[in-house]
């Protein structure tokens, strides 16, 4: 009866934060079962965290002001600026040529497509590590989520079902992309691996492209344009596995 409390305060906070060692789960659960007021206390702590996210997560979705670009603006010297301008001009020339070839003959990725896949990869990297709030609207409200994102994008978007490939929908969020809305759906498998499907309105009118693949820091992405929407499926998966999921997504969207 008057035994030591089976768990300590540090473990209770670890429980709140989802960082409790699995071996201690049973002990903590038993303790909370026996102490409803303690469970209430920890539930309140979690509610506080959820409120923090509700209050401050919008900062994640805002466009970053120009003053926060790297290298820092204040440190720009005329010389460095010239060098950068030269690089930028070279890139634009190269990009322009690439775009021209793509349109004319080669079916290479358009420059706009590259910007698109970069946005998709950046959004993937930012949100995938979120432990408890990876999405704005969770999969429990899937209908609401899809309707909301469709309305904001001005096009019918869908969250493909990937259970057959053992990925469950976690939910989605709305993101800015060059001042336009983009949608991100997040999926997770039993091993905690996460995929994101990034969707935005067509980049330059209606057209279709083949699947293309891009990779950055070990995160691969298949991307394609299908009618008025552009898609990018990103994940830290082997390329064949990601390819398989991308095809499943494509097939569901084009039954």
């Amino acid at each position, binding site marked *: 009866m008057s035994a030591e409390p089976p768990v300590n305060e540090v473990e209770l*906070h670890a429980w709140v934060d989802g960082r409790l060692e699995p071996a201690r789960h049973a002990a903590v659960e038993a303790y909370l079962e026996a102490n409803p007021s303690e469970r209430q206390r920890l539930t309140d702590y979690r509610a506080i965290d959820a409120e923090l996210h509700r209050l401050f997560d919008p900062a994640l979705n805002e466009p970053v002001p120009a003053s926060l*670009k790297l290298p820092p603006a204040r440190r720009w010297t005329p010389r460095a600026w010239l060098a950068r301008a030269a690089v930028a001009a070279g890139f634009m020339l190269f990009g322009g040529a690439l775009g021209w070839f793509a349109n004319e003959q080669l079916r290479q990725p358009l420059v706009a497509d590259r910007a698109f896949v970069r946005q998709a990869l950046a959004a993937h990297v930012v949100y995938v590590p979120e*432990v408890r709030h990876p999405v704005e609207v969770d999969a429990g409200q899937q209908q609401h989520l899809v309707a909301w994102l469709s309305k904001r994008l001005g096009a019918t978007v869908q969250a493909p079902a990937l259970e057959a490939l053992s990925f469950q929908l976690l939910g989605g969020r709305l993101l800015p992309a060059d001042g336009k809305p983009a949608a991100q759906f997040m999926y997770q498998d039993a091993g905690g691996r996460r995929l994101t499907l990034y969707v935005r309105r067509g980049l330059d009118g209606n057209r279709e492209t083949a699947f293309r693949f891009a990779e950055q820091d070990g995160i691969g992405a298949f991307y394609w344009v299908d009618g008025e929407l552009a898609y990018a499926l990103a994940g830290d998966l082997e390329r064949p596995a990601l390819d398989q999921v991308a095809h499943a997504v494509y097939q569901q969207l084009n039954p």
Partner: protein
Amino acid sequence: MADFARLVTEQIPRLRRYARALVGTQRADDLVQDCLERAWSRRGLWDGQGELRAWLFTILHNLYANSVRRQAGAPAFEPLPEEDLPALAPSRHEAALELRDLERALACLSPEQREVLLLVGLEQLDYAEVATVLNIPPGTVMSRLARAREALRRALREPPRARLRRVK
């Protein structure tokens, strides 16, 4: 170095979120900009392997701690302007009131407690990372976290307008 700039740029939204919670919307971007400048000037010190995010949060923390020391006594937190409150579909007004309560309660924490609470609860750093970022022992992280959470819980439950339970 292009890589460094890109990796840091990916972290900017998170730095802004944290800074906003820490010092308020008005001063957040100045703090982040100072942080980016310092990170850039010290980019040679980042080994390219470690957790860049924790490294950036460390820089931001040092800048913040300096500013707190400089203006000890001055309020370190400003309320958000009304338009910064997130748009919430159901019962927006009531939710906004609850968020106001949370801001007020946050403002009552000491800077040290607020940092630990935000790094754990909002930024989801693990405890060891928080200890590294703030340069304090792990035990201090836990005691500050416990005190901050309990202070917020009391502040939100006890005043007449606090309705934490409704939030679920």
